[in-house]
């Protein structure tokens, strides 16, 4: 009795071709930055012979590895429809607290002098706690994520200054150094780590229920709830993972630099957002891919590297950087043809 109608999709839809159109929207959007990257590679190669050497390109990757972890974290949080500004102070505070708890007071420790191997887990735990506290304020007190994490940005940066007394910590436990300093198969360990985490993130966000639920929550939290997704749990988890990734980024950066400066991470959140949004992540939630975000990181890294190689006058550095970022935005807008949010 209830037949389904013969779907004469004909005219109202596209020429009903094969089941799968040749170019899928999501994929296409992902590749938006590829032209920009190609242009940057060509321009870089023309401007300086050192640019295309492996040494230089590896350098770019290594320099961007800590940033890329923050972008990974922020991208996931943005997709879930939230915001985290405090990542920029977590990257400094988590390692500082961990180290201050294990080193002697002579090296600006807090006097606890816990076992050195505790430093790594303590650092990650600190990141997780900051994320969890953000979650508490956002979910339980229903405060805006932007303003909560802005408050936390200030607070955690203040804790960093307070705990370190404004000093750089340069007596770093070996385990910390290891991650940021060693290389494996010719590639810095930190690059391996961030690549691996990005791949894991992409797989989870594309092919796993848990990952897909970020998009559902970010797209329409009520609909996600009505579909049985535990939205608060998802948001909380993502915020905590974000904190842990920021702490890990702090460890990589510490290893790379050999010490933690008192202003580590300062101003970094702007680059994080620039990379994420250039990479196609929407600030309104529910949209964007980690692959896009990774491309965003690369675009930013290449821009900086080229500016460095050509040694533009320091006074005009930022102006040129800003203009190139705007150009990259316009370019990716024109190649995808989709309005941005």
């Amino acid at each position, binding site marked *: *009795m*209830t037949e389904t*109608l013969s779907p004469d999709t004909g005219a109202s839809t596209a020429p009903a071709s094969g089941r799968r159109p040749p170019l899928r929207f999501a994929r296409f959007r992902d590749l938006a930055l590829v032209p920009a990257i190609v242009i940057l590679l060509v321009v870089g190669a023309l401007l300086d012979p050192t640019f295309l050497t492996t040494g230089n390109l590896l350098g770019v990757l290594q320099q961007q590895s800590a940033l890329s972890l923050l972008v990974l974290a922020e991208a996931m949080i943005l997709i879930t429809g939230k915001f985290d500004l405090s990542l920029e102070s977590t990257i400094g505070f988590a390692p500082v607290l961990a180290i201050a708890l294990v080193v002697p007071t002579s090296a600006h420790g807090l006097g606890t002098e816990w076992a050195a191997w505790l430093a790594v887990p303590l650092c990650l735990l600190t990141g997780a706690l900051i994320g969890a506290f953000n979650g508490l304020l956002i979910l339980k007190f229903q405060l805006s994520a932007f303003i909560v994490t802005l408050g936390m940005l200030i607070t955690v940066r203040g804790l960093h200054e307070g705990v370190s007394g404004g000093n750089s910590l340069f007596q770093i436990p070996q385990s910390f150094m290891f991650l940021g300093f060693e290389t494996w198969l010719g590639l810095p360990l930190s690059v391996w780590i961030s690549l691996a985490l990005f791949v894991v993130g992409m797989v989870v966000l594309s092919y796993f229920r848990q990952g897909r639920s970020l998009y559902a929550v970010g797209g329409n939290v009520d609909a996600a709830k*009505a579909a049985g*997704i535990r939205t608060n749990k998802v948001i909380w988890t993502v915020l905590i993972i974000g904190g842990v990734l920021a702490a890990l980024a702090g460890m990589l950066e510490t290893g790379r630099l050999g010490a933690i400066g008192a202003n580590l991470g300062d101003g970094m959140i702007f680059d994080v957002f620039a990379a994420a949004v250039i990479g196609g992540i929407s600030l309104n939630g529910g949209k964007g891919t980690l692959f896009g975000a990774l491309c965003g990181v690369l675009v930013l890294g290449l821009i900086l590297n080229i500016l460095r190689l050509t040694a533009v006058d320091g006074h005009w550095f930022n102006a040129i950087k800003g203009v190139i970022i705007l150009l990259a935005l316009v370019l990716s807008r024109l190649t995808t043809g989709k309005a941005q949010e």
Partner: protein
Amino acid sequence: MMSAVNHPAASEGLAAVARNVTKRYGRTVALDDVGIEIKDGESHALVGRNGAGKSTLVSILTGLQAADSGEVSFFGKPAPALSDREGWRRNVACVYQRSTIMPALSVAENLFINRQGKRLISWSKMRRQAGELLEPFGVDVDVNTPASDLTVEQRQLVEIARALSVGARFIILDEPTAQLDGPAIERLFERLRALQDTGITFMFISHHLEEIYEVCQTVTVFRDARHILTAPVAELGRAELVDAMTGEPGGLTVPGAADRPDVSQDSEVALNVENLTGDSFSDVSLRIRRGEVIGFAGSASSGKHQLAETVYGLRKPSSGVIEVDGRKVKPGSVLDALKHGIGCVPRDRHHQGLVLGLSIAENAAMTVMNKLGPAGLVPPKQLAGVGSKAIESYDIVTSGADQPVSDLSGGNQQKVVMARALASDPKVLVLINPTAGVDVKSKESLLGVVDRVARTGTAVIVVSDELDDLRVCDRVLVMFHGEVAHEFGRDWTEQDLVAAIEGVSE
């Protein structure tokens, strides 16, 4: 009959004309060289199945979107430039299908948006006028409350009141009645007739065909983005109209419960609700057997929606028990409801039904993501499978399972919500206003789905304001002030039901 009726040759006396209009959205052709002529002073109905392009034409006729080609004119003059919003507003007022309410602003201001007055706004005057404007519609709210606090019906009435009060001589109403109940519709029609008498021209879009016969003189049918016919309403029978819309003869067969075998008294109880008390209802008990379809009727304040939402875990009851197959369901937990086999079409698809940015496949599979693969893995093949199955079973007009739901027409979106509810093969299906905004043919197919799943042993709850939806029910419970006041079997009559709903029957 199926060919286009010749256009009236007269070019004067026309309130609005669109000629050779074509509009594409990416790969989708929404309008394919269509035209419409609306005579001054007439009420012109535009009908067609979901996705036929009606709302697209509305957005072109109101200057919100530019057509790819074609022209529009009002009262013999070409339409103003797209940027001249004031010019468009002088010619045409509209109730859009999608809400144009500003939730943070007060009801009063929503009514007078962008015409608060030339100089200093007098809020007290505006409030007074707002109250006067809403009076005939029976919207009894403080005009100072933010619009976000209104119910769906109230918001719709505010939009209607606003469009009718702008003072344009040509007014478009895109499915104004989809969210309204009986008395509200009556009041709307009273206003319409009064305005018709003063010579106002209307274009009226609705999926309730009887409304067209009630208020319109001429009807135009669109199908698959094309113009099919234009004819005086009086000359077109209902069956012919439906044939023109669907493009195939045969008319409609809304399934009724009588066609199904009786539910045997010893078939198992699928859903057992005991002494349930919650928001706006109290102490409700009921048992639904496998294969049984139960309808809930009642006024907007009867608590019927709240009851259904509580069963699915969207609301938390203050006391009482919900059991599926004899096992208790955790109150207030959608996840647990799903685990126990309850599926649901929520009340408002934009609010709780869909994630607009995600694809059809993903929306349809959202409740069964954990069943597609091990450890939460969602293999793309399986996902696409759920999507294409939904498209086939519910006749969704789309370019593919990976199209974002935001690109679908309203009726097709509703079908995706239905697909989502049924994807988990639920033992108990809760449907709240399942056919809102769905075209006649799709309504038939959606109700057919209800009939089909009931035959396979699913227990179904249908909460609806529309009698058609209740015809598939084995029993209809009428709620009044939060309690079940009446129960009818399959043999209910309209008069009895309406009397029970209004609380005047004995």
